[in-house]
């Protein structure tokens, strides 16, 4: 699946997008895998209350299932308008 990062999450991880091969069943499982990779991921995902997640471009929760999903995006709370 494609994993996308926006705003300070993108800056902290250092890339806007990457392809991730994972058997993670939920978003939380994917976060756990990413955190274990490197310090920059652990730093970006340190406080999940400061993050939002979208699965296939729909806002959702960290317990959302990932079966059949093409795109997961992590970002801070939105500040439009």
């Amino acid at each position: 699946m494609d994993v996308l990062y926006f705003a300070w999450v993108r800056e902290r991880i250092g890339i806007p997008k990457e392809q991730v091969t994972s058997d993670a069943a939920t978003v939380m499982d994917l976060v756990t895998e990413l955190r274990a990779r490197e310090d920059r991921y652990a730093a970006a995902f340190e406080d999940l209350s400061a993050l939002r997640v979208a699965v296939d471009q729909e806002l959702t929760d960290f317990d959302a299932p990932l079966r059949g999903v093409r795109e997961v995006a992590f970002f801070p709370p939105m500040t439009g308008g």
Partner: protein
Amino acid sequence: MRVVVQSGPFDLGAETSGFAAAQLASGAVVTFSGIVRDVSGGLSAMEIEHYPGMTERALTDIAREAMQRWSLEDALVIHRHGTLTVGEQIMMVATAARHRKDAFEAAEFLMDYLKSRAPFWKREITGDGADWVAARDEDEDALKRW
């Protein structure tokens, strides 16, 4: 109903008159526009990042919900991304309804929702560097009244 996401500027006057002129069954048109402000006096630019694809989808969903809940005749949302300077228009919403109460309420609903449910992130550039604008609790709380 029209949703536009663009980097370039838009003409608030032309958009508003075009929107109003297209309404035949509406007696009320309400518009709101958001402008880049310089709160602390040192802002050189504002950068707006967004999530292409999801942005259009989220704005369309929000506009569609407003159309249904307030029986609007029409709705318009324009939101910019990229680099903007102080005084530039960031975004506008317009609503058209038979009566003004629906048009006002739907415009407020659109604003409240697109502030914290459409994937945009603002960053303020000053002489001291760049800072992401933090989401405010009031903006999240504002959704509860709907």
